[in-house]
């Protein structure tokens, strides 16, 4: 594999383009909470982060065209997401006896809405 045979000028201008993209996205990060999707702030922020990450990985880290490593990266990310899905999505979402536990106490009372009552949950 020859890694020296590159066109410096072309590569350099690509680097700058990506930087501008990243800076723009950072700017969006700052205005988004005030301008749009304010209801889904968290999701919007994470979406922007994913876009930025994608730019970095593909161009700065030269992953474009790397099938093997892309597959491996995909696998690793998949595993992280599964951990999230299970721990957050399945366990914490169904946290048992939430309103009786100390660690879930909140400065602001928890809203009743959205806390589905679990099959094993008994009236308080």
């Amino acid at each position, binding site marked *: 594999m020859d*890694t020296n045979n590159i066109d410096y000028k072309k590569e350099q201008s690509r680097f700058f383009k990506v*930087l501008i993209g990243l800076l723009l996205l950072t700017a969006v990060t*700052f205005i988004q909470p005030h301008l749009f999707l304010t209801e889904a702030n968290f999701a919007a922020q*994470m979406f922007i982060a994913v876009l930025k990450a994608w730019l*970095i990985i593909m161009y700065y880290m030269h992953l474009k065209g790397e099938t093997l490593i892309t597959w491996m990266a995909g696998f690793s990310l998949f595993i992280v997401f599964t951990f*999230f899905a299970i721990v*957050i999505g399945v366990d914490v979402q169904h946290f048992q006896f939430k309103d009786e536990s100390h660690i879930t106490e909140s400065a602001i009372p928890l809203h009743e809405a959205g806390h589905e009552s679990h099959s094993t949950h008994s009236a308080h």
Partner: protein
Amino acid sequence: MSHEYVPEIATDRDGKQHEVQGWQDDFYGGKLGFWLFMFTEVLMFGAMFMALSYYNTLHPQEFLDASASLNRLLGGINTVILLISALTMGLGLLKMRTGDVKGAKLMIWVTMLLAVAFLVIKGFEWRAEYHHGVFLMHDKLLADSSFPLGEKLFFGLYFTMTGLHGFHIIIGIGLMLWLLKRINAEKVRPDHHILHWNIALYWDIVHLIWVFVFPYYYMIGAGGATGGH
């Protein structure tokens, strides 16, 4: 080592010759190895993010409140600094690959400078938080303070994760110094730049982590957000 490495040849039954990949001089192998290492970083920070969203799910409102109290301006500046440093690091590698060793070294220095700037700003942030009584083992974060649990957890993790990220930056600076030494010793050359390549990758992963740390800590509570998690 004085011996020149000559790739080996394997001959099959038809007498056809196949070049053998040895462990010496395996650029792709080096790169692959480093990518694999980066996956472990991803899992490490992934686990911490999981802990973070674990408590976020339990204390949604307190997380927003805590996030809102962070200094977004300094965080934003740091984001930009890291963005630019990733660029300089990448340009340095480009220069190395095209034979401009001097330019490459210059770029590495610039990157290091930016890294130090990042750390200094981070230091100011932590200092300000300390003076507000928000610091590990201190005042509001002690078990018997009346600070809400969710905010204690938020800040406990904030200091841990940004601390660990800062630690990565420090290691990065160390690696760059080492890289400069290797370049000066001509162990890293335009035709043999795997170390440079990998340290550039390292710098990118450090940055990549920040790409997620930043919004999760600084931005989720911005603009008076009320959830949407």
